[in-house]
């Protein structure tokens, strides 16, 4: 077995040695992934770009600490989510809960909007207006739910990978994801429910 490669195929020895070309290959492979996470977390292109740059600056400085137990992508996600969450904390110190009360399902609210909007035409579901509403809905989630939803349902990480990035148990990831999805389902049902009502008017 070749121990000198990371799980995602980069040379661990070169990265440890600060090799610029290998680092450039990492940047080129993952900058889009980091930018997409940042823009979803912060909703502002300039802030997202700052987080993107900060993530790779930190990565370059810290690569000697990277032990290869996770993939480079998971490790970058860890740096980027930390940066984004710290940014949000600085921006809105009042919004970030200190304690985490999301570890059980007890408080999952009973669905309030029960409207069947799934049969709306695709162009209505995916219109520019709907897209803006979807973005706003994610922004309205508390940061610790938002980050789980983005990693799992937008970036497509597995529960295990998300747990690894956020240093959470898999159970905590599932619980937070469930809460985030239900909150979004509620908001989307309110929005699309109005469209269904409009369509059924004579």
């Amino acid at each position, binding site marked *: 077995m070749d121990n000198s490669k990371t799980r995602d195929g980069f040379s661990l020895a070169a990265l440890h040695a600060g090799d*610029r*070309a290998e*680092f*450039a290959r990492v*940047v*080129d492979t993952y*900058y*889009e992934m980091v*930018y*997409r996470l940042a*823009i979803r977390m912060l909703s502002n*292109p300039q802030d997202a*770009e700052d987080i*993107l*740059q900060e993530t*790779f*600056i930190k990565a*370059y400085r810290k690569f000697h600490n990277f032990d290869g137990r996770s993939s480079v992508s998971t490790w970058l996600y860890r740096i980027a989510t930390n940066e984004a969450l710290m940014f949000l904390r600085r921006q809105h110190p009042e919004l970030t809960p200190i304690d985490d009360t999301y570890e059980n*399902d007890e408080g*999952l609210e*009973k*669905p309030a909007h*029960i*409207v*069947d*909007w*799934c049969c709306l035409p695709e162009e209505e*579901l*995916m219109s520019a207006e*709907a*897209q803006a509403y*979807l973005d706003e809905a*994610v922004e309205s989630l508390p940061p610790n739910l938002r980050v789980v*939803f983005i990693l799992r*349902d*937008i*970036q*497509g990480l597995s*529960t295990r990978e998300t747990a690894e990035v956020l240093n959470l148990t898999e159970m905590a990831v*599932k619980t937070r*994801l*469930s809460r985030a*999805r*239900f909150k*979004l*389902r509620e908001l*989307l*049902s309110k929005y699309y429910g109005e469209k269904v009502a409009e369509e059924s008017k004579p």
Partner: protein
Amino acid sequence: MMSHEDCRYLLGSLSEFVDGSLEIDVCAEIERHLAECDDCRIVVDSLKKTIYLYHASAEQASIPEGVKERLFRSLELDDLLPK
């Protein structure tokens, strides 16, 4: 047979249900309930659709012009910028 009081009890499992990551017997229990509870079926369908829409929107999102070039410059890697 499950009653409407079970809707609340099922809520906490529905997210994993739509992921298909529940054990077979729990899944079967939920499916039996969905067959007779319209509200829960709508909740499950709209939950699935919510996830689908975000998944679809992720694929459409593009990276603004110049982000890559500015990133390579800020890292002093301009000479290694892929063509």
